């Protein structure tokens, strides 16, 4: 809740300043900025190939064993890091935002067996939560639509990420209703998933945002979408069962590509050799 309130406050502040200060333009050419950035993200997974421990036979339940992946809004994470940019012209700059990021993706499985002798069918529905953390290194080209104090922009480029740690928890109950309440369901311990994941990823990133420039600093609010090209589950270790969940919870991870939508706030400071750090100039026109 706190990040949302903070973002709203900054947004209102920026709009207020925008309305008061349109008569300045920003002196940005050949200027470098450094700063801090942080925010929230929503992860998602695209299945490249599905895998199962439990193999269907003609004697299997009619209900499928497909994994149901949670929508992007249900997979929350966060990131924080540094901000570097260098402006080649008044509107074109390169941005490098190394950050430490946590992200997640969830999927659900359900199985049932009928016990006709004891009239006590056995059902289990499981929500598998994977949390990944690592370093994200996006290198972006940024184009500002204006050189004014309030400047909307778009940016795009490539990123690399390096996984540091991955964890997995399974929440489960005995009712198949497409819902596992994490508050009331039983859960496993948190298992180390790191060796089941590929460490490195590379992909494309694109986003948009706006920056409000003050005399000695600037604040940006932006959103970026990232799509990783590499398959992120380690094929060689898929069945190695480092988590201990493979047989007990009939779990083999699908091969996945990960994507991510972030919303982040950045505060930047200009770096300049001149005595004055002021970056605002009175508009001539």
């Amino acid at each position, binding site marked *: 809740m706190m990040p949302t309130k903070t973002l709203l406050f900054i947004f209102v502040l920026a709009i207020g300043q925008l309305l008061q200060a349109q008569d300045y333009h920003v002196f940005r050419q050949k200027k470098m900025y450094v700063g801090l950035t942080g925010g929230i993200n929503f992860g998602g997974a695209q299945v490249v190939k599905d895998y199962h421990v439990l*193999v269907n036979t003609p004697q299997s339940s009619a209900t499928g064993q497909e994994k149901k992946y949670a929508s992007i809004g249900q997979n929350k994470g966060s990131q924080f890091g540094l901000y570097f940019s260098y402006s080649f012209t008044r509107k074109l700059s390169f941005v490098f935002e190394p950050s430490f990021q946590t992200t997640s993706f969830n999927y659900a499985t359900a*199985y049932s*067996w009928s016990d006709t002798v004891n009239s006590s069918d*056995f059902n289990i529905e499981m929500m598998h939560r994977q949390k990944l953390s690592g370093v994200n290194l996006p*290198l972006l080209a940024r184009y500002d639509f204006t050189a004014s104090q309030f400047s909307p922009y778009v940016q795009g480029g490539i990123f690399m990420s390096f996984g540091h740690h991955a964890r997995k928890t399974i929440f489960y109950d005995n009712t198949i209703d497409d819902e596992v309440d994490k508050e009331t369901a039983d859960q496993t311990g948190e298992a180390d998933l790191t060796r089941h994941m590929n460490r490195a990823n590379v992909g494309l990133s694109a986003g948009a945002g706006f920056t409000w420039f003050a005399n000695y600093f600037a604040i940006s609010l932006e959103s970026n979408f990232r799509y990783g090209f590499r398959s992120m589950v380690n094929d060689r270790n*898929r*069945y190695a069962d480092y988590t201990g969940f493979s047989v007990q919870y009939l779990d083999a991870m699908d091969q996945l590509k990960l994507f991510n939508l972030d919303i982040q706030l950045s505060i930047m400071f200009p770096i300049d050799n001149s005595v004055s750090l002021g970056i605002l100039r009175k508009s001539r026109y």
Partner: protein
Amino acid sequence: MLFLGIAVPFSGCKKDSKPEDSFIKIYDDQNGNKHVHPLGMTASESNDGYIVVSAYDGWRIQVMKIDNTGEFVWNYELPSNYVNAVPDLVKMNGQNYLVCMDAVGLFTYVLKIDEAAHTTTEVSSFSNVLYPTAAYNSGQTIYIQNYDRLSYKTGIHRLSGDLSSIEQSGSVNIFTDVEEQIVNHVTYIGNRIPFFVSSTPEQDYIVMNGFYNYSFSLIFLNPDLSFAGVYNGAGFNGGLSALSPLGASRFALARFSYDNLYYNPGTTLNPTAIDIAESIPAQGHSELAAEKPVLIRDISISGTQYKVYLSSTRSNQLLISVYDPATGELVGKKYLGKNSPITACDLIQTEDEGLSILVQVKIMGNLDRIGLIKLSKAEAEAIVD
């Protein structure tokens, strides 16, 4: 370019084994009352997968085919008159056969597994061979072991080349009541009995594990199936669990004594001796479950032949132990399984030099299902590394 330069080293390196060479598969059945006991597996006729024979609902029989990646192809539940398949599948002239029993007459059938029709066809039946307990292909001849409840004998029968008739039979006397043990064995009540038939590489002796006199014993027979010697068990509480010949009267074996299991990967046995099994020197392995199957196989890893033991631990894992057959030295071992009980049922080496392990898996704490664990060539090599 800098990014790509960093990325390339992480993009994977070539290894001998492909990811699909290693897997765990469990074969589903929605019937929560069904308990499946995998018995044995063998390569399919065209080497495009495996044939797995299992028991279910006690002594009923199911045949299943899976492909080389462990995916299900077909299964067939045999009619209810065919029961009590012996664990040993027999391959002859490229065809797979199973030996089982008639549910009413208790006599023996030989069935051919028809992979094209996804069924079995009856090759022969032997009305005088009651309670089949083991089958064996020496490479030249097929043998069937049985318990004859009418004459109180353990019998062994050599079949003709077309499996249609018995060429020669032999038997040894039993002077104690084993009916309860046999019935419990064939109906899967309590522990299974490790019956087996084998032969020396020189083909000068047939060796079988069965009831003899007052105990469960290791019996040596001459090529004409006459009695040669015996290592008597300790009643029903001690004897051989598994045996694999090395040649020149040397054997790799596992023996049990009550609930303890002992290995000796290279010992000399005298085929004409009258001795006791518990006198065979062997190393105890207190972590292993003596009542569960022990398998000893000749496996080639990195071009070197090893004796590989597969057994189940008391904590429901599997233990693979690899021994140098020349020295009897343990060169590597590997535990398989976590959290869920798994029991060893069969072990074969695959064409890609990996290992396929047939297991019984207890899922959700209750449901006994067929499982297959495939280790890649690289994983097999890692055991001895």
